[in-house]
């Protein structure tokens, strides 16, 4: 989908006032917190499993070119054709050429964020005149509504049943019903017709296995098995970092992914695909292609500190740990990658200027990194982006940060390094705050501080700590007025 992160503030202001959406997302978060905690708790040794998944991703990132070459060698030996694309345009053109070459009219898809990233569906429909159907129910709904996915694994989790039903009424002529089983049944029947006539299946890749030249795909619904088993051509699209050294590593990542994502020990289906169909097979693709896509990742890779961004396994666990995402939802992020993982990858792919608010509107609470099975240090990454923006960074699309902010920090730092100046500045600040305060609480604050006092008061104790300490030094005791007040309050209550 076309990226539009610059509208963050405008969209955020619309979303943040939707309190029932926020309450709903809080409940969703609580449920998934519980499910994932249970599933991870069922592992024999969760701590070890987490160390292993982090090590597997580190191993991939540290050995990426070698693993990709090994994968390619083995995949080609299996009969797959491996194609490399530098960017979105090239990937789209490659896939379009394949569709044309194979006289494709109908395509069914597995849910694939990488194909969203390159806006493949629109391109193919316009340039190759094909009809494309998203097999995953959530992704189908989102495709029909023309919005960004609300979550990378559950794209329609924010929609209520009425919205889902209406979307299907409007797009596939379903008879309106609010029965979940009936809705799913209608989509099942509709998609069966497409699965039956599909000429090409397009999927992502959850993990490519270097040692065997296989790709591993996980799902619950079955649309991936359809898209890889029924059409005569299969195109699998993967970004560079989706490779593991061997099958056990790939399976372990899938284990951590399904537990961290939906709280499942194993998804309903796991497909391990090694190439076009075997001689004795009736089902399966006659021709299989893997498109390996860069689209800005080799640039990330070149930077030792930023490279960890490529560890992401797309489990989506970080979303439900993020207070900001649970409050503003996916739409402000303006792309197919919302939430903390989006805040890690979008700035590096789209540029730090355009995505400014995505990494700035973060409290650095660390909820995301505390649950990341790949061991990404989100807080460190956001620190990096802010520093890159402050100083300016051409490679990653950051013009130098606000001169006013720079000057402000310079002045502040000068005070911090000079205790006498610091004390004076503190006195000045306290004086101004005092103008808007009553009984030790500031009600109105000037200028940029207004953003605080519009919503809350600010404590302003009678004395600074220094003043208190000076008294304590002199007399071994000092008046702690706030404590005294509290004491008095206590005595009054007796």
């Amino acid at each position, binding site marked *: 989908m076309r990226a539009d992160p610059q509208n963050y503030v405008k969209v*955020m202001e619309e979303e943040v*006032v939707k309190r029932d959406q*926020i309450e709903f997302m*809080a409940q969703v978060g609580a449920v998934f917190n519980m499910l994932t905690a249970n599933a991870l708790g069922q592992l024999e040794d969760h701590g070890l499993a987490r160390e292993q998944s982090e090590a597997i991703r580190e191993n991939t990132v540290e050995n990426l070119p070698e693993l990709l070459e090994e994968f390619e060698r083995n995949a080609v030996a299996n009969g797959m054709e491996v194609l490399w694309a530098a960017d979105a345009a090239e990937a789209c053109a490659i896939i379009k050429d394949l569709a044309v070459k194979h006289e494709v009219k109908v395509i069914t898809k597995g849910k694939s964020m990488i194909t969203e990233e390159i806006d493949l569906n629109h391109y193919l429909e316009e340039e190759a005149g094909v009809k494309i159907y998203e097999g995953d129910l959530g992704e189908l709904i989102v495709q029909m509504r023309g919005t960004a996915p609300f979550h990378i694994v559950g794209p329609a989790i924010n929609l209520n049943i009425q919205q889902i039903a209406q979307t299907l009424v409007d797009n596939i002529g379903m008879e309106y019903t609010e029965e979940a089983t009936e809705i799913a049944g209608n989509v099942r029947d509709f998609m069966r017709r497409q699965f039956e006539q599909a000429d090409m299946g397009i999927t992502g890749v959850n993990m490519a296995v270097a040692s065997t030249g296989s790709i591993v795909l996980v799902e619950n619904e079955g649309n991936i098995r359809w898209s890889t088993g029924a059409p005569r051509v299969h195109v699998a699209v993967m970004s560079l970092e989706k490779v593991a050294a061997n099958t056990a590593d790939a399976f372990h990542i899938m284990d951590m992914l399904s537990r961290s994502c939906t709280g499942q020990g194993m998804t309903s289906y796991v497909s391990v695909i090694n190439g076009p169909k075997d001689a004795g097979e009736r089902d399966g693709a006659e021709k299989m292609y893997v498109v390996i896509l860069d689209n800005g990742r080799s640039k990330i890779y070149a930077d030792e500190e930023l490279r960890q961004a490529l560890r992401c396994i797309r489990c989506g666990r970080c979303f439900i740990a993020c*207070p900001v995402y649970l*409050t503003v939802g996916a739409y402000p992020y303006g792309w197919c990658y919302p939430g903390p993982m989006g805040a890690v990858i979008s700035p590096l792919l789209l540029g730090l200027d355009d995505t400014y608010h995505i990494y*700035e*509107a973060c*409290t*650095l*609470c*660390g*909820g995301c*990194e*505390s649950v990341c099975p790949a061991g990404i240090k989100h807080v460190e990454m956001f*620190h990096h982006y*802010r520093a*890159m*923006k*402050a*100083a300016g960074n051409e490679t990653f699309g950051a013009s130098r*940060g606000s001169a006013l902010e720079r000057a402000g*920090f310079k002045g*502040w*730092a000068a*005070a*911090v*390094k000079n*205790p006498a100046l*610091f004390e004076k500045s*503190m006195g000045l*600040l*306290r004086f101004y705050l005092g103008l808007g305060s009553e009984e030790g*609480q500031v*009600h109105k604050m000037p200028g*940029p*501080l207004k*953003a*605080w006092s*519009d*919503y*809350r*008061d*600010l*404590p302003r*104790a009678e*004395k*600074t*700590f*220094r003043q*208190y*300490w000076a008294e*304590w030094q002199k007399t071994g005791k*000092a008046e*702690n*007025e*706030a*404590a*005294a007040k509290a*004491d008095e309050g206590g005595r009054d209550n007796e």
Partner: protein
Amino acid sequence: MQKVSLFIPCAVDALMGDVGADTVELLSSLGFDLIYHEEQTCCGQPAVSAGHLEAARDIARRFIEIFEDDEIIVSPSGSCVNTVKNDYPRLLAGEGDWQRRAEALGERVWELSQFLVDGAGIEDVNAAFAGKIAYHKSCHILRALGIDEQPLKLLNHVQGAEIAPLNAAEVCCGFGGQFALKYPLISSTLVDIKTENFLKSGADILIVSDPGCLLNIGGYLHRHHPDRQAMHLVSFLARNLKGGVGA
């Protein structure tokens, strides 16, 4: 008596001097000899968060020079302790000796509850409180520093205090430093949700271990629910010592 060097956050100094005072009173009531380096100002966290690294490094080096001769440094602020322990070595990586000095200093800097429980083996500060309290888990204390049991141990030993469960205790209150000023709509929504959870808990006081959270939640409560209060952990303990304040 063990000498403890006080690391008083700038926000405490400027706005919540009483929290600093409570720190002094609690620690001295427990028998610690206190040092306060008056030339300290700020750990530089705002510069780190905003990406002004040169300023942050200057401030870090100065901080290290001020404190590095102290054996024990204690602060009533998890976020400031995190900056010193976890950010300073990264900031000063590749600056020869400075990284080593930062790491060495980091080993001797303690968040207050961690110092009392893990460092000094004190869980019972001899306090009493008849009422219900709830405990908010500040992000830096819980996740950045891995401190969770220690504050609860201290609170559990307060005679008569009942700890009410707090829904979403570990979720951020929405302060985030400059975040509160730059994204007030999101920040105020988050603190409102935190407040709702506090009110639902039925607790009289919300205990908060980080000054940033206290500014945020305390200020919000004062504006919207002035009959309820948030208190720093150190203030709650110091002001409820058996025998009274300054005993």
